[in-house]
């Protein structure tokens, strides 16, 4: 099956700093989502971005489908950005099962 690798595994920032999280995947995809898992365990949708670039406030994401990677940018980080960030993908040839395959996540800690 498709492989998803996220880097870095852990990241510690001071409030106000910028960061870039990366997601590499081993096959073409027609679904790529970025999630933020907050300290209470809720998976919050950040972006649906199988290709192209999107921005939402301080967050933006870019997926270069032909090179099989996606980047999540966090600018002017805040303590509330802390948590685990997951990338999840689905290849177009996955048959009738539309399950997402998740990476292991990046644990972000933003210190005040």
């Amino acid at each position, binding site marked *: 099956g498709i492989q998803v690798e996220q880097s870095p595994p852990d990241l510690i920032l001071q409030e106000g700093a910028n960061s870039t999280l990366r997601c590499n995947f081993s096959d073409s995809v*027609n*679904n790529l*989502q970025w*999630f933020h898992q907050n300290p*209470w*365990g*809720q*998976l919050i*949708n950040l972006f*649906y971005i*199988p290709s192209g670039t999107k921005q939402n406030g301080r967050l933006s994401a870019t997926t270069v489908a032909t090179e099989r990677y996606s980047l999540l940018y966090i600018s002017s980080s805040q303590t509330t950005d802390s948590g685990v960030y*997951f990338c*999840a993908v*689905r290849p*177009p040839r*996955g048959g*009738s*099962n*539309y*399950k*997402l*395959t*998740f990476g*292991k*996540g990046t644990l972000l800690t933003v210190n005040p």
Partner: protein
Amino acid sequence: GAGVSQSPSNKVTEKGKDVELRCDPISGHTALYWYRQSLGQGLEFLIYFQGNSAPDKSGLPSDRFSAERTGGSVSTLTIQRTQQEDSAVYLCASSLFAPGGGETQYFGPGTRLLVL
């Protein structure tokens, strides 16, 4: 509803007992998924429902796990004779259906299961 809801939020049970976990998807979403998040395995797929089609059970770890979806809406995941390794967060997601799978999946808050 406004989002995917799950119940109970937390469940503590004794080894060998059966448990039922419930998921209420977003209204109008015909696709429903169950995933499991555990320390050792990360986030892994369990089962997928789409409309009236037969569910895809390829991710269920053993025959102690089963799920049903009644009336194309609410789903129940049942774990029989629970084992300690079943302890995990069980997450439900739903989406609109799009041929090829290109639709955003929305996740519920999860049920945290602890088997003693």
